[in-house]
């Protein structure tokens, strides 16, 4: 039986030490590291000969992970051509959609004081009076109640509007017709008349705008595909037997939070 370290192996041993922030090993230290590595290999082979590598969870996970890295490398081997990427992007455009953005003005009717029903009624009653007004009309100043944040919101996503007003309000605003006053629409604060100035629809950017992101996504998808296929192929070569057991029949106690001193520390 033969164990041979190459010059590259020696270089790696030295590098591993440097990478840990230690100085470059001198000649004697390098020999000692080499001797350790040789002994590690000998012990590993002897252990394998005894079958000690079987049923070791750490070794199994390590080997499984190496297989996984191998598959990940495979997915990088054949980068897509521009045409392949464009075709793939066309199929997956939905994943790259940039959300719609709304710009709107609103008039607020607070339930504080007379209650929610009165606020809704006041809003409904005010709608005809302002229906013909542009969103910038100074006449709006006398309508409704003072709102605690902004009267105008420009270019907001539904998520941002939802964060400020509650998600139901955001959904209702994004469903409005631009250029008209609509409502009453309910938010987490009360009732609103809303003038949707513009609704920039959700859009799929051109491939040129986000090519790097699309390439990364392609590689990731390819990796998943290769892994699934490889796992299916490999599993097909095995007969797998798993007992159908209820956890309660395993005869094990659930892990307990301990009451011994020291446990529960550092939470």
């Amino acid at each position: 039986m033969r164990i041979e370290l190459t010059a590259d192996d020696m270089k790696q041993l030295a590098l591993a030490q440097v990478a840990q922030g230690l100085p470059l090993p001198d000649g004697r230290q390098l020999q000692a590291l080499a001797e350790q590595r040789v002994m590690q290999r000998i012990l590993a082979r002897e252990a394998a000969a005894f079958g000690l590598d079987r049923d070791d969870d750490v070794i199994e996970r390590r080997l499984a992970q190496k297989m996984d890295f191998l598959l990940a490398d495979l997915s990088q081997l054949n980068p897509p051509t521009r045409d392949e990427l464009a075709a793939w992007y066309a199929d997956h455009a939905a994943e790259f959609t940039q959300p719609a953005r709304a710009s709107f003005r609103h008039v607020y009717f607070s339930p504080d004081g007379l209650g929610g029903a009165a606020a809704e009624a006041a809003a409904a009653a005010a709608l005809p009076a302002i229906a013909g007004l542009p969103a910038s009309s100074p006449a709006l100043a006398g309508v409704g109640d003072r709102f605690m944040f902004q009267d105008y919101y420009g270019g907001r996503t539904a998520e941002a509007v939802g964060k400020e007003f509650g998600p139901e309000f955001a959904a209702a605003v994004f469903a409005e017709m631009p250029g008209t006053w609509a409502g009453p629409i309910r938010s987490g604060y009360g009732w609103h008349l809303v003038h949707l100035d513009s609704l920039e629809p959700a859009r799929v950017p051109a491939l040129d705008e986000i090519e790097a992101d699309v390439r990364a996504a392609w590689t990731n998808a390819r990796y998943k595909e290769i892994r699934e296929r490889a796992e299916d192929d490999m599993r097909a070569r095995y007969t797998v037997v798993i007992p159908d057991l209820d956890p309660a029949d395993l005869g094990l106690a659930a892990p307990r939070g301990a009451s011994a001193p020291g446990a529960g520390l550092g939470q």
Partner: protein
Amino acid sequence: MQHLSARRRAALSVSALALMLGTAAMAQDRHAFFGETHVHTSWSFDAYIFGNHVTGPAEAYKYAKGEPIPHPLGYDVKITTPLDWMGVTDHSEYAGVVRLSNDPSSPISKLPIASQLKVKDAADIQRIYLWLGTSMIEMKPVEALVQPSISDTVWKANNDAANAANEPGKFTAFCSYEWTSNPDFRNMHRNVFFKDCAKVPDRPFSSLESQAPEDLWDWMDKQREAGNELLAISHNANLSGGLMFPTEVDFKGRPIDQAWADSRDRNERLTEMKQIKGQSETHPLLSPNDEFANFEVLNYLLGDPQGQFVTLAGSYIRQALKDGVAMQGAEGYNPFKTGVVGGSDSHNTAVPYRQENFFGGHARLDGTVKERMGGHNFAGMDVRFENPAGLTGIWAEENTRASLFDAMQRKETFATSGPHIRIRMFGGWDYAPDMTVNADWVQAAYQGGVPMGGDLKPRGGDNAPTFVVEAVKDPTSGNLDRIQIVKGWAKDGQSFEKVYDVVWAGERTPSPVDGKVPAIGSTVDIANATYTNDIGSVQLTGTWTDPDFDPSLDAFYYARALEIPTPRWTTIQAKELGIAPPEMVAATVQERAWSSPIWYTPAGDARGVATGRTVASLKEGGATQLTTDELNQLIAGRFTWVRNTVTGGVYKIQWSKEGQMLIMNVDPRIPQPSEVGDIAQGSYLGHSTAYQIRDDRIVTNFGNREYDIAVYKVAGGAAGGAAKAEGYVAARSNEFGFANYELIPAPVFLGTEVKDAVVPTGPVAHP
């Protein structure tokens, strides 16, 4: 229908006013940015052991931005309302080593020590946890695990994750970590936040280097000198066993002094009001007159030590603020001028902020509904006492590291119990009572006063300061019940508190007995775990001028907004399981927000000449301290009538020969000094406590701490502030050297308002 209802009337030309004010609108443009100061991922040694193996800082930031991530038990969790900013605070101690030891691709897993950290079965969890945890408590670091080659890698990866998640203007990710000092099972943890990730040190200061906060502050001072701005946030004062806010000696046993106070103020700008493991605002026995103090109290010490339990003094923020103003008056410095934040302390990477979205905080130890509702005894803590995470609001110009950090430094921060409630508070001398009818009142408030976290500059005269407060509800949560102002003040070493209702929803009249606004009622259907917003307000705004202001006394003020009652998570999950809500926790809660305080410190001449007696002045005047024998003769088997010379309050103390004492005839209308418990209730119920006479002192107890009383005999006619007639004067050990109690003859009348009563003479039948 609001208490101050003129609020909205004159609010017509909002945009016109804003245009006119134009350029000066900088301060007005401060927005509330909500975020997280305290969350652990699988990189924390204990989180990994609890079963959080998969998700790290990158996933924490994803979760904060609104993306679903896996709970350690495998199911997806999603935040109710995304956050504006976050700092992941994994423990600096053993950061990442457990995770990396279990990751065969890491260099650390190849070290010999790694084999001791591999988690293969349930027994390993216990073994590793005890091993690492005990090494931290005993300050014996495992050398192989604290090598720079390991910890530096993890710290760098943590900061890389923050940099990757940071999107200035949209989402801020801080470089931060938790310093995990836990001496003798007392929680002294601090989260450390850095202003600029480009300047962070090679490695954080860990509790393995020192468990003393003073050493952490020294290290922070050096960082700051090197141009690296940073601040610390103390948390879970409620679990600190009284160590978080000491008043006599520091962690190293040295007397607390000006230098200590300065160091704390320089470094520890903020403290955590509430998190998954309870609130640290106050305790019902520290604040017996605050009917909302009984909220998410957690009686627990980390590690569940045998023979040890919580200490009330030194463990709650309101008491620390009170001690701080008392020390300012008595000693000339205030170590506890802290702002407030909320946090989670979740060990799941993901954080539950809401009652309706509560998935626990400790991976497999509270991650399923049955485990939670079964009351899992998790290291001595019944997990039903856990509650959703707190949240921090910051009033800042923009959502960037610099802007948010500067606001944290000036303490313009607030805490909430979880919902995105916005709360504002300003204090000034010339605020008009109706100032909030103007749309630009915030602008005026900044110009004419100070925001939360600030100091009211003293101004001569007797005029009281005015405060303006506003709260706006979370659009996805309950309406608001009221805003209160909590005032604390001090005189002659005694500190006091009072909670004032300032503005409230609905038509409610303060009680003619105690002046408090009655409860708002409840819309909660407990069996169905639902509520409606048919009561309460969306927004509350008002001003308040302190009716009891004394310009010669140190004081602080903070605002507290309460939601209407809503179902607690245990009520919601009991409904899911079809069982009764547990009785050991409240079925409903009133979510809330707390502002950072505003302080008032009298200028030198306003403070006036001290009128109270001190122990030193008594001794100077020839008073002699009673011995053990003399004390026994004076009180054992007798009663004494006592007058508190600061408040004028009079009461009787019964001293049994068997060592039990009972305070009687307590008038609830007279404020009681700190750390005496609910003596008005105890007086009514006849609830006695133990006392001892030894070492020339009367030794009493409150909240697991000893309070000694020394009694002095004062000769008749003594000068220099001492009593004129012969008598006895007493000093309680937590009153900073003042002797504020005197023995008096039994009073004929006990009332305080009727002054000219006379008992008719003549024969009376014995009752």
